[in-house]
């Protein structure tokens, strides 16, 4: 004998419409994590191991890197992906442990504010950085400052 039940008796919960932020947050963490592995280790390798290694790090080195569009885009990606990745991690921890609604809202608001401020400041620095400030001793600056 076979019995067919038309529809389950348990109530069916259907997701409300709109963007599923938890899903996209999870996907973002996975994708940005993979990209960050390349960006961070590339950053560390170029800064600390290539050429003279860590001894080469000075104002001129940083000035030279930030005048190169390749490194500008690299650093921008690094800044945005890493900061949002970290902020989203802090948000999930807050969701886990801040049982009080008000505390949760305040903490998440603070995380959001800090992230936005740091993203704006960081991006501003990357694209408005002056590698050859006037009146600085030439031996502290990148080679192209005196050449031109």
């Amino acid at each position: 004998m076979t019995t067919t039940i038309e529809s389950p008796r348990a109530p069916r919960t259907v997701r409300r419409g709109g963007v599923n932020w938890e899903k996209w947050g999870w996907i973002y963490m996975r994708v940005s994590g993979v990209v960050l592995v390349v960006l961070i280790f590339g950053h560390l390798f170029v800064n600390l191991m290539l050429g003279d290694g860590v001894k080469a790090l000075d104002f001129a080195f940083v000035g030279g890197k930030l005048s190169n569009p390749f490194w500008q885009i690299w650093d921008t990606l690094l800044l945005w992906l890493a900061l949002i990745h970290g902020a989203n991690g802090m948000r999930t921890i807050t969701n886990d442990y801040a049982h009080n609604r008000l505390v949760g809202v305040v903490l998440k608001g603070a995380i959001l504010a800090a992230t936005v401020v740091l993203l704006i400041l960081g991006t501003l620095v990357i694209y408005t950085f002056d590698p050859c400030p006037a009146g600085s001793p030439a031996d502290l600056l990148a080679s192209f400052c005196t050449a031109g």
Partner: protein
Amino acid sequence: MASDVLEKKGPRAHDAVPTFTVTMIVRRFDPEVDEEPRWVDYDLEMHGTDRVLDALHKIKWEIDGSLAFRRSCAHGVCGSDAMRINGRNRLACKTLLKDLDVSQPIYVEALKGLPLEKDLIVDMEPFFDSFRDVQPFLMASSKPKDGKERLQSPEERARFDDTTKCILCAACTSSCPVFWTDGQYFGPAAIVNAHRFIFDSRDEGAQVRMDILNDKEGVWRCRTTFNCTDACPRGIQVTQAIAEVKQAIMRGKP
């Protein structure tokens, strides 16, 4: 004469099993007396073939009859006696004393993350609630062909074989740090049992279950810490099952 021969032929079975003294430290809690749970020591003379469950029986039957714990089949099938042994969730009936370090005391306490009722007994209702929420039953609206049974190939059956092994002991869910935080998360066991039906070719309710788990408290709260896989007494690859459900939700179909 005859008895001499018998004695020479074979020593009695239990002589061969070495005995040793083991200290069990059990986290006791009597809600009618205690404000807080307290650790109580018991020194027991046990055999090498004994399990943690046998030690608990010895305490209950010979030392203190008020010790409360759940056990039914005592052979790793019913899933009643999951508890925290030396800080890890295990079944007391599947953990041999000799596999633990018996030179040190053995700590036994109730599962974490579920309300403690008495001694080693926790309230399992929150656990079963999230199990119910994933609708763990076959949903099929169509009549089977020829009015007999719903056929399935061995490959289709193998797709979800691992997750059919679940005995609902709660060892995985109560080892999950995300479940400990606020108890809102479905927990590994519920997702394992959803997996068992989502990937069943005879079932038609995959979309319903995926909608349920594609929730704020659903699969996305899993942090892939693998505590559940380590805890499972049936060896289910729990974290992998959760990852497969995540992928199915992203694809929109099993």
